């Protein structure tokens, strides 16, 4: 048995959960300590976290440490989300927290945060797997933004972030000083407008019959975890014009919960109108649940059924489709890339994560052309960096974007490339993955899938790639020669192309 403490420093509450993880009973919540404080209020208004808030937070975190120690937990993790992420004084703030509480706070990127939320849902395997058999959307509401993720069959295919988090909306409306009736109208207008473009991009050929809501307190307010569309609309009509006090009394929740629930309700309603949702599932999960799940996963404390890598790949493929990348070209390249990767994996010290990044880079390598044929590399970089690939950290996303970029232009030196996040190690990963991508891309230069089959043989310092094809491969060969040089430079392995005729 392991005891794990997960602390989430969110936009409007700070929460610690203590989990007990056993192979038999799985993950069990033992304690949940939650303190409402609106860090986001400072940040979304002033762009920084004030001294008072920081002091209050330190006091609460110190108390959390005390509780955590009381349980003698085996491990803990402290994550912060959008409020801290967007705070201009993030570093100073983190330093202060560290000095006053001894806690190292990890600031999650939006994508990692959402992925963790998603994991928390997926951890409810039975219910989750049943629900996602039908078209499903997850709306993950945060203080700063919401994340909408779509499922096709049982794969997560698209995920989009929108800056209409409940606290942000509430703060925006607060300044208007309007009546409840007018409040709803204004809010609806704001949210509807956001959804208009979303619908065009994502919903036009999809049927979304289930909506999963995580991250806010609607489940606590309706006191159940499943609602039909009609249930929701009744609840909405009943609540929306009530004062906070009145609504809080009715739902038996504190008033501050209502004040952030109100904007969420409008968001849900607008989503309901944009999609044909029949049922709403509110598992009442929070980031901390996902943190526990990830901890269990990383420490192999549980057997997991759902393959999250497949979700990331599915989402990447879906994005590729949007940017009109050639599906068959990707298929050939992906097979080749994985083939080469697996051959040299051991000698190069690659791990499974590198393999995943390579596959994503292959899938997305053509997306830049959607913007500019002449400057495809640079465009691809920007597209990928702006994309929500949930499950990838910012760091990983940057690796993928660079790999794709330097597939078309020569790799620049370490000092020229990327952001402050870029470590030497990551730079090397970029170089290595770029080398592989370059080679495999050259093998289908014509995008005609001339080869029906390929085989890789690693022999000392030589990697022989046999392509089974009856067609003329001279274009490929020429391109290959160019890319092979870089490959050899990076891996000290010389790739050799051999054509085998089928007939």
């Amino acid at each position, binding site marked *: *048995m392991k*005891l794990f403490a997960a602390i989430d420093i969110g936009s409007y*509450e700070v929460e610690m959960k203590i989990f*007990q993880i*056993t192979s*038999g*009973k799985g993950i*069990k919540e*033992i*304690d*949940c*300590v*939650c*303190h*409402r404080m609106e860090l986001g209020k400072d940040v979304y208004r002033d762009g920084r976290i004030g001294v008072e808030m920081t002091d209050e937070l330190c006091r609460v975190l110190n*108390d959390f440490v*005390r*509780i955590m*120690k*009381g*349980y*003698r937990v085996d491990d803990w993790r402290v994550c912060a989300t959008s409020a801290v992420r967007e705070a201009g004084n993030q570093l100073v703030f983190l330093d202060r927290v560290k000095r006053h509480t001894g806690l190292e706070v990890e600031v999650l990127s939006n994508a990692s945060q959402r992925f963790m939320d998603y994991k928390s849902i997926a951890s409810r395997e039975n219910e989750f797997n049943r629900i996602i058999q039908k078209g499903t959307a997850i709306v993950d509401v945060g203080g700063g933004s919401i994340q909408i993720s779509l499922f096709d069959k049982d794969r997560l295919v698209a995920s989009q972030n929108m800056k209409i988090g409940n606290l942000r909306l509430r703060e925006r409306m607060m300044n208007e000083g309007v009546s409840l009736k007018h409040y709803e109208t204004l809010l609806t207008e704001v949210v509807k407008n956001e959804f208009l473009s979303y619908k065009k991009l994502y919903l036009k050929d999809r049927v979304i019959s289930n909506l999963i809501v995580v991250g806010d*307190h609607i*489940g*606590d307010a309706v*006191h159940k975890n499943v609602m039909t569309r009609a249930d929701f609309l009744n609840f909405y009509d009943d609540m929306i014009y009530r004062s906070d006090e009145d609504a809080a009394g009715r739902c*038996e*929740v*504190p008033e501050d919960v209502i004040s952030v629930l109100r904007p969420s309700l409008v968001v849900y309603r607008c989503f309901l109108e944009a999609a044909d949702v029949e049922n709403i599932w509110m598992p*009442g999960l929070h980031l901390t649940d996902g943190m526990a799940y990830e901890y269990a996963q990383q420490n192999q404390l549980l057997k997991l059924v759902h393959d999250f890598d497949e979700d990331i790949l599915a989402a990447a493929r879906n994005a590729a489709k949007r940017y009109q990348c050639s599906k068959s070209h990707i298929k050939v390249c992906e097979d080749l890339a994985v083939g080469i990767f697996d051959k040299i994996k051991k000698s190069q010290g690659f791990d499974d994560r590198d393999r995943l990044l390579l596959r994503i880079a292959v899938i997305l390598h053509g997306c830049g052309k959607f913007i500019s044929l002449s400057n495809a590399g640079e465009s691809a970089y920007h597209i990928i960096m702006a994309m929500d690939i949930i499950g990838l950290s910012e760091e990983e996303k940057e690796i993928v974007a660079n790999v794709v970029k330097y597939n078309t232009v020569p790799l620049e030196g370490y000092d020229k490339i990327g952001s402050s996040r870029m470590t030497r190690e990551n730079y090397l990963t970029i170089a290595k993955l770029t080398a592989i991508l370059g080679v495999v891309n050259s093998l289908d230069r014509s995008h005609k899938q001339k080869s029906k089959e390929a085989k890789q043989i690693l022999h000392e310092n030589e990697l022989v790639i046999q392509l089974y094809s009856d067609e003329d491969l001279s274009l490929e060969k020429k391109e290959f020669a160019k890319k092979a040089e870089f490959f050899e430079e990076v891996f000290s392995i010389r790739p050799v192309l051999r054509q085998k005729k089928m007939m």
Partner: protein
Amino acid sequence: MGEMDLKKAEYYTNRELSWLGFNNRILGEARDASLPLFERLKFLSITASNLDEFFMIRVASLKDMVHAGYTKKDISGMTASEQLKKILKETHELVDLQYSTYNRSLIPALKKRGLKIISEHESLSEEQKKFVDAYFEENVYPVLTPMAMDSSRPFPLIRNKTLNIGALICRKDGKEKHKTLDFATVQVPSVLPRIVELPEGKDGEKRVILLEEIIERNIGQLFLSYDVVCAHPYRVMRNADLSIDEDEAEDLLKEIQKQLKKRQWGEVIRLEIEGKIDKRLLDILKEEFAVKDSDVFEIGGPLDLTFLMKLYGMEGFEDCKVKKYIPQPVPALMNDDSIFANIRKGDILLHHPYMTFDPVVDFVKQAAKDPNVLAIKQTLYRVSGNSPIIAALAQAAENGKQVSVLVELKARFDEENNIIWAKKLEKAGCHVIYGLVGLKTHSKITLVVRREEDGIRRYVHLGTGNYNDSTAKLYTDCGLLTCAEPIGEDATAVFNMLSGYSEPKHWNDLIVAPIWLRKRFLRLIEREKNWALAGKEAHIIAKMNSLCDREIIEALYAASAAGVKIELIIRGICCLKVGIPHISENISVRSIVGNFLEHARIFYFYNDGAEELYMGSADWMPRNLDKRVEIVFPLKDEKIKQQAKHILDIQLADNLKAHILQPDGSYEKIDKRGKKMLICAQDYFCEEAVKNAKQPTDPVLDHVFIPAEAGIFSDRD
């Protein structure tokens, strides 16, 4: 049924008058000649201390309302000044009855038993006079602080509840024709025993005199250059209601300490004086204390009858007292296993004081030592003087357990005590929480978190009474020891909430005031009503200390009107009226006043056969439902449910100590004539606990409420 207006004032009894009725019932015990004599003294003493508290709190707040010009009416349609008028009238009658009981009944009876109370120093014999004068010289004189008032010295501050002797004095050397009378006063020192034993008579008769008589006799010694014209005891009661502005109070602890000092000097709301007091002296007192005639109580006997409790403690006279009952061991714990192992075998119901309070103390003690225990959390409301629980908690903290203690500083009249404990615990390393601003934490709950092989397991004790090992010998209370997971989770959430963190997303089993409890009770009552309307059997039994919440009473009226049978066992205040045609004809109310103070709260709902039983810390009073953190818990275990139902059944069968509420608002005892079996519930439970402890078996299987051995059920005479 058509729409009825159940809110009509005439359907409700004023709570203060109902309380006075309760004090009258206790006085009834003091007047009951069938009871052992010394028990009667005790009851009389209780009526006196009750009345003091009633004035300091209730009357004081009514006076505040009058001063503030507050004219809103209570549920019975009375304004504050109307209530005060009525209360004062009834209190005067009550006090008259107290003293006629004392003078006409108890004093002669005591004399018959060989204890003579000499009520006036004038009637001392010469020998006795010598004795008391010597006693005065040696013991009393050194601690007296006489104070005189004249043009240069203002009227001194007279402390709340203290007994004083007021005197009129006059200078001896004054030659002028117009001799002036000065006022002087001296406090009867509370550090000395109020009862002074005199040498025994020849026949072995014990004789006692009260301290104030000795002082009165020697008062001349205090004002040597004066003539004492007259001297009489008096006593004042001040407004003592602590109202703390918590928004302003940065540090609750400091604020309460400050208020405690202030309590001495609140407005005077009652002046008690000796009946034969000198008119001139009285006028001075009335003027200086600014009291009206109706606030002056002329007493026909010694002031402050609480000294009778001390008399009760006097050695000897054991045949005039009820034999002290020794709380019995709990059958489920009569083995060598640890308390945790025993709880794992199944829930355990405790019924104090019939069963000993030790398991509750042991629960904390064992947890303090158990290496697998991670944390102990407990709410403390009123703690006893040398509490073993406090010691165990401190020990646990020293052993490295995480100990969180909620100390409710606002427990009335115990604040001073609580502050001392809070500091002691903090010193030992406990995490001490002082409760939520604006809410008094009245719930009684202890949580022990233990790390066991298969994971974390939580053990919980929930009670209806305070964690006070002394009162646990006098109050009847229930407690539940359990390690049921849903309750454990809820208990964790309760403590997080009390520490100021957010309420949990949902509760499994516990029902917590102020947010959820009222609604739940209303729903439970309404559900019973609906069963009745559907033509099903419907039945509510509720036992508590007080019922005065309008909304609940209204719901009970509606349920009764729908045909629900409602049996209430309410010790104290009851604002509900029985026998209102078509409204409360199905409701019966009984009040049990006995040797132990009835204190448990148990609620039973028939629920069409799927019976539900709850226990908890809350009465059906607005303050319990809206202004306090209270916990009511369901009894889930079938065996425990039967045990709890059994408690209710026996109390409903009581025909010795039960007083039945009449439609006119009075209470009457049950006519014993023709009753085959006389049952006193408290005695029954005593007997039963003794029997069960001899052969630990299932208490429920043993008896289906047929009191087999009838010995103790017969009338005491």
